[in-house]
């Protein structure tokens, strides 16, 4: 199983990568009594039938194995935590996944290491424009991978490990400040 929410974020975002998206937005809203999580991509999208099928663990488009567990895991977790889960998609336009969780639920895992998740996504997929927004009680922090690579002087900025770790620290400091 995926240990915490940041692992789910990484996993669901990878679906957007595999859908051929070049823009992927991730949002976390940790305000009030609910935690909201969404991922939107502009990848190839899915038909209505496929959208219905993706929450079935025994549906996958891959040929390497016969199961597809990412979305079913997230759906199961949000429902266990008294929240809602939805997938909407349009062929050629992209996919939007949302999941919410009641923060009082004893089954809600911690948010986990979001900075490592984002850094992994940025490094693994430098061609994608990543946007991340984290809101909490009226404050928010946004990060845009294209802005970051421009600030760091070009396309392959994240390939330098010292800079990748710097980016991770930048995200970590700013998310921590939302919780001060």
């Amino acid at each position, binding site marked *: *199983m*995926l*240990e915490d929410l940041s*692992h789910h974020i*990484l*996993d669901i975002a*990878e679906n957007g990568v*595999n859908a051929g998206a070049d823009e992927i937005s991730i949002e976390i809203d940790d305000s009030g009594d609910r935690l909201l999580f969404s991922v939107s991509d502009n990848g190839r999208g899915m038909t209505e039938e496929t959208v219905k099928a993706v929450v079935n663990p025994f549906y996958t488009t*891959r040929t*390497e*194995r016969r199961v*597809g*567990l*990412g979305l079913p*895991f997230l759906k199961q977790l949000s429902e266990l935590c008294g929240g809602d889960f939805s997938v909407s998609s349009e062929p050629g336009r992209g996919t939007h996944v949302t999941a919410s969780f009641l923060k009082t639920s004893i089954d809600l895992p911690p948010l986990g*290491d979001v900075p*490592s*998740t984002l*850094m*992994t996504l940025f*490094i*693994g*997929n430098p061609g994608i424009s990543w946007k991340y927004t984290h809101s909490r009680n009226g404050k928010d922090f946004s990060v845009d991978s294209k*802005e*970051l690579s421009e*600030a*760091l*002087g070009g396309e*392959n*900025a994240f*390939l*330098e*490990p*010292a*800079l*990748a*770790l*710097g*980016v991770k*620290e*930048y995200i970590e*400091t*700013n998310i921590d*400040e939302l919780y001060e």
Partner: protein
Amino acid sequence: MTDKKIRSLDDLRKLKERTGDLTSARSEDDKVKIIIGMGTCGIAAGAREIMNAVLKELETRKLHNVAVETTGCIGMCQNEPLLDVIRPGEPRITYCLVTPADVTRIVSEHVVNGRIVQDKLFGRAD
């Protein structure tokens, strides 16, 4: 390390100045590639922590000629985390059930010195 945390884009620019322009020194063909499986199975088995360990090790050793990439599930989920090393002109080597401690060995033995870490090779019975 300083205790002043990186908080703004300006802080990142300063870090970039301190680091210097090291990435463009070599062409893509001269680079060693490290590829980490980042499917659902890989993530559940700790692939993201392997990514962290790889970056830390490369930074510690000041290795600038290594490209780190990720890939999806290749159907060997029970052997995740999987990590591949490709040295220029050499075959792709796959390591399985990789832990952060193994990363240190794989980087020093294989990435730097070209010696395959036999006991972590994918497909070995022991």
